[in-house]
């Protein structure tokens, strides 16, 4: 387990460093896929095979595909990479990196001052996970179902293109700019007049 864990964690850290330093979005996404795969390998070495499979299916499958769809739809390409190169000057990232490094050093100090005993890795099989998930955590499963439903509805509503409405009643007051515009004068035709004309 040990060598597997160390190799995959080195790969995970290296590929994550590559993710946050790339200029081109597609390169960053490819390194992100490598990072997710190696994290899945870490989970396998920690005795969690079900979660390792889910990591690869959901993260490296679904979420990466979502990102790639957005990159494709927005047509982010070479000019985005050029712009990123202009934005990521050293004076931009040095100070946040130093601050986060201080926090990281504190956390590592906290981790390595306590007692350290060797961890026995034993596999927690999916059967136990499923019994726990649908036993004591059943209310949380239902709540996460609500959350996913809200996420789907929210994404569908936010991502909808708002067409300019052609009807004059809907046009009046849809946005601020249109509110400011004078509305075309409509000649009022009442029912009595039409009856008289008839």
């Amino acid at each position, binding site marked *: 387990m040990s060598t597997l864990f160390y190799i995959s964690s080195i790969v995970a850290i290296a590929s994550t460093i590559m993710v946050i330093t790339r200029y081109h979005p597609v390169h960053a996404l490819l390194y*992100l896929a490598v990072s997710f795969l190696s994290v899945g390998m870490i989970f396998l070495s920690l005795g969690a095979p079900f979660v390792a499979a889910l990591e690869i299916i959901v993260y490296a499958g679904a979420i990466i595909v979502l990102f790639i769809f957005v990159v494709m739809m927005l047509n982010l390409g070479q000019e985005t990479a050029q712009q990123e190169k202009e934005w990521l000057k050293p004076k931009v990232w040095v100070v946040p990196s130093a601050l986060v490094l201080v926090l990281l050093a504190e956390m590592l100090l906290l981790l390595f001052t306590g007692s350290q005993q060797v961890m026995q890795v034993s596999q927690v099989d999916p059967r136990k996970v499923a019994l726990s998930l649908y036993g004591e955590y059943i209310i949380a499963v239902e709540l996460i179902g609500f959350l996913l439903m809200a996420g789907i509805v929210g994404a569908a509503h936010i991502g909808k293109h708002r067409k300019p409405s052609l009807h004059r009643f809907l046009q009046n007051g849809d946005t601020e700019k249109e509110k400011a515009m004078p509305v075309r004068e409509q000649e009022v035709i009442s029912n009595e007049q039409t009856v008289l004309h008839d």
Partner: protein
Amino acid sequence: MTDSANMVLMVATVLFALGLVGVLTRKNVVFMLISVEVMLNAAGMAFIAAGSKWQQPDGQVMFLFILAMAAAEVSVGLALVLQIYHQHKTMDVEDLKELKD
């Protein structure tokens, strides 16, 4: 020392710090969302390490919840990115200042 749970926590902390650096330094919305994904993944790894140390399934259950939450978050976030790009024609977060006084 080699096999202690602290090593796993250390790797998770380093990944979380890398994601935090990404959120703080990037100005492109897509890269910020990617860094948030890295941070969520690192938090899930800490849960897996705890569940593996105590040999309980609860850590994996919590990782499943984090997974579902990340999926919902990334779908809403990417829809927002599409809408931002259609309305402002930019990906720079510093151009989005309608809510400023």
